[in-house]
C-alpha cells in the first residue's frame, strides 16, 4: 500500500499523542499503548507505567503495542526502563503484537534479545 498525496495531508495534520489503557486479570497487567511514542511523550509514559506497576504489583505485564502508530528509540528506552522496574518487584514483562513500524524499530534495535516480543498474533486481540 502506498500513500496518495491527499492522505499525506491528512497525515500531516493529525499529530497524535500517546494514550495508555490497561486491563488487569489473574495477576496479569496489560498496558495498551496507542498513538505516537517519541521523546516528547517518553518521560510521562515511563512515569505512568511505573505507577501502574507499583499499584498492581503484577506477576506478568504485557505491553500491547498493536495500536501504537509510531515509536522511535525513545520508546525502546521506555520499554527497557519498564522491564527494569518490574524486575525490582519480582515480575516479568513482554511486548505483544507491535504494529508494523514499531516492530521494525524493535528489530533494528535488537530489543528482542533483552525482552520477549510476541508478534505472532496467536490468539488474536483481546
Amino acid at each position, binding site marked *: 500500500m502506498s500513500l*496518495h498525496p491527499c492522505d499525506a495531508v491528512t497525515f500531516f495534520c493529525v499529530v497524535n499523542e500517546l494514550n495508555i489503557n490497561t486491563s488487569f486479570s489473574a495477576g496479569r497487567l496489560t498496558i495498551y499503548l496507542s498513538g505516537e511514542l517519541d521523546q516528547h511523550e*517518553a518521560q510521562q509514559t515511563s512515569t505512568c507505567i511505573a505507577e501502574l506497576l507499583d499499584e498492581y504489583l503484577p506477576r506478568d505485564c504485557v505491553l500491547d503495542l498493536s495500536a501504537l502508530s509510531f515509536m522511535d*528509540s525513545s520508546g*525502546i528506552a521506555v520499554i527497557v526502563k519498564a522491564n527494569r522496574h518490574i524486575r525490582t518487584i519480582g515480575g516479568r514483562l513482554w511486548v505483544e503484537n507491535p504494529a508494523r513500524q514499531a516492530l521494525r524499530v524493535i528489530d533494528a534495535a535488537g530489543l528482542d534479545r533483552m525482552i520477549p516480543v510476541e508478534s505472532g498474533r496467536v490468539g488474536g486481540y483481546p
Partner: protein
Amino acid sequence: MKEQNYIKMEFPSKSSNEAFARAAAAAFAAQLDPTMEELGDIKTAVSEAVTNAIVHAYPDEIGRVSMRLRILEGQVLEISVKDWGCGIEDVEKAMQPLYTTGGEDRSGMGFTIIGSFMDKLSVRSRPGKGTTVVMRRRICPRIGKR
C-alpha cells in the same frame, strides 16, 4: 546528484516539534509515492535525528534546529538535520550501538536505527560548533505499487 525539489524549515529545539518534523518529512516524501513501510522508515529516521538535536545538542537551552529535505535524481530523498549546539567529541564512538550520554532515558540506538533504515548516513560535527546529519534513502519506483 541533480536536485529536483527541496524544502527548508527551522524550528526551536522543543520536543513538541518532533512530531511536526516527521509529519512534514512524510508529507514532502509523499511525492515520491512511497509505501507505508518506506514512509515509516523516513519518519523514524527524522525523529531520531531531530530528537538528538533537541536533547543532546542543546541540553540546557533552546537552540535552533534546521531541517532540509531534497529530492535528488533517481527517486532519492535526502534529509539533512543541522544544529548549532554542543557538537560531538568522537563521532565514531557516538555511532556505536548502545552508546549514549543520555542515561537511562535514552537507548543509545538512534544512529543504529537510522543506519539500518537509510541507504546513507553521514555525521559531521565540531565540538562547540554543532552537528549536521545527512541521510539518504532511495524510494523504489514500482509499477502498480499501490
